[in-house]
């Protein structure tokens, strides 16, 4: 007897801000079934909420779940812990045949910014995909929106997030944020050189995530084509992050093209100011859903 499955069982590693926000998105997914939430503190808010949703939990890290992977049929795991522990988590999960979507800035696997390069990853059987950073998810589509029109010799992004939305993992990984984002500005965004800056702002009430993209084009910018490309890219991102919007710009100043963005979250875990959580978890969910649909299609054929 074959049990026909219509959702791919997944595990969430990390029960902090990002992991918990992601859980709510997966619970709504038509193709993903969050089965496990893995943490390190039994009393963490994320684990408490996961249990309330009927998920299986462990506070013993990835090791606490490994022996259940086969019986629960886990095929995809999301790691929302910290860049410092990701490589080890990934190694163990991959050894158990699980595809890993990495939401830390560890950059073990290739970068994935859905509207720019998700298609390139389909069918490649990569074991680990890296979702860059929240700032990267918000800004790199726009660097690409400019670079697909004409060469960009330098791309720079500034991500400003509310202090309350930055958990301990994010704070310990500040360097990894800037380095990983810079690397993806060039390799995915298409700029020759890249720089990333992150600012935490403690204002009350908390400010909504905002991002600035500065591109220096090699030749005089084609204003009309760039403006149209930016508009089109905004619509692409809005398909999975409804609160994403170009607030001002593109502003042109010589060869500088500046785009000012705002990301309003869906308020799944933290309130809507935490667009940084939303864009990261929405991108990861969107990516995993594409793979899940493939897996399900494969299942049906078999």
């Amino acid at each position, binding site marked *: 007897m074959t049990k026909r499955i219509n959702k791919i069982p997944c595990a969430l590693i990390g029960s902090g801000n990002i992991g918990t926000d992601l859980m709510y998105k997966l619970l709504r997914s038509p193709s993903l079934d969050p089965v496990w939430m893995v943490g390190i503190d039994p009393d963490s808010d994320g684990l408490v909420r996961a249990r309330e949703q009927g998920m299986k939990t462990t506070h013993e890290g990835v090791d606490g779940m490994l022996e259940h992977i086969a019986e629960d049929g886990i095929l995809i795991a999301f790691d929302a812990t910290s860049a410092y522990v990701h490589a080890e988590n990934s190694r163990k999960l991959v050894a158990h045949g699980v595809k890993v979507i990495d939401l830390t800035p560890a950059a073990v696997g290739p970068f994935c910014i859905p509207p720019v390069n998700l298609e390139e990853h389909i069918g490649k059987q990569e074991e680990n995909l890296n979702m860059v950073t929240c700032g990267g998810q918000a800004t790199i589509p726009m660097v690409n929106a400019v670079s697909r029109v004409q060469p960009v010799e330098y791309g720079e992004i500034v991500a400003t997030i509310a*202090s309350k939305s930055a958990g301990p993992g994010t704070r310990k990984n500040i360097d990894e944020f800037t380095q990983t984002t810079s690397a993806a500005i060039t390799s995915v965004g298409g700029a020759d050189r890249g*720089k990333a*800056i992150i*600012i*935490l702002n403690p*204002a009350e009430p908390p*400010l909504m995530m905002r991002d600035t993209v500065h591109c*220096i084009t090699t030749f005089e910018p084609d204003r009309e084509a760039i403006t149209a490309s930016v508009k089109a890219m905004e619509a692409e991102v809005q398909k999975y992050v409804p609160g994403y919007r170009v*607030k001002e710009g593109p502003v042109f100043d010589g060869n500088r093209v500046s785009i000012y963005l705002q990301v309003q979250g869906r308020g799944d875990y933290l309130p809507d100011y935490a667009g940084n959580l939303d864009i990261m978890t929405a991108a990861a969910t969107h990516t995993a859903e594409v793979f899940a649909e493939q897996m399900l299609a494969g299942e049906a054929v078999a």
Partner: protein
Amino acid sequence: MSIQGRKITIHDMSLRDGMHSVAHQFSLDDMVSLSTALDRAGVPLIEVTHGDGLGGSSVNYGFGLHSSEEYLKTVIPLMKNAKISALLLPGIGTVEDLKMARDIGVNTIRVATHCTEADVAEQHITCAAKMGMDTVGFLMMSHMADPETILEQARLMHSYGANCLYMTDSAGYMLPAEVSTKISLLRDEFPEEIEIGFHAHHNLAMGVANSLAAVEAGANRIDGSVAGFGAGAGNTPLEVFIAVCTRMGIKTGVDLDMIMDAAEDIALPMMGEPTRISRDALTLGYAGVYSSFLLHAKRVEKKHGIKSKDILVELGRRGTVGGQEDMIEDVALEMIRAQQNTGAT
């Protein structure tokens, strides 16, 4: 407690905070002539970095004429007595930059965060302290948090390994009573071997008064710049502060005549326009806005035709913090749109 006979360490900011005054365009010759003059005058510690620290060269903050590495490599070998420090803001600079600075002979690293976000500095402070550097935790915009918060954040930086803790009045907003309260609390709560420092901006003309209040309250490292260099209306005017310290019997080891000459004959000619407490600088101090925003706001005024003072007030109202230079054009465009909408109705 009498402050006569007290010894303090003067830390010159002209070649780092002063970078903001010249949009980060010091030539290597400027660096050499001013740093050697300061060294000769007996200034024991001189900061040399892009105005926004290591890695600060960018569209957002302005590209430096040279890299911080080039400036440091030029200045360090020329110092007879002075030690060189570098600034690093986590989120802008990285541990990699810090290691570069140390490898070329930087003695002191100052890791700066907004006054409520000290925990983003853990990687950098830990690394600097482990490498045996003089490691300073630098709490910016300290007027935005109460004394207990400043203390708690300073404790975090201390726990990572900082041997000196700074309260920084980045907006030039504080009055002497606030400086006294906050510095006294830090001095009382940390062991004697942990140094306490104070960094002022002169936007309300309180640089000297606030620095004195800090010394009276127990601070022993005081920042300043010559000839009005520094973001906004400059830092504590160093030649003036040295004169006051000399009169009061506070020992700085800095020669008054020589620092006056360095200010007048060497630093002043490097400035485009002499510093004064302009309407915009005064606004920074009065509204509590990050001093480095000044030149950026003036640039936006020029491009978009909206008064820089109004932009600065709005940035203050929104609780912007150090590093958010990208908000300036964004906010200006938003204000212009709001004005147009009002005009249309």
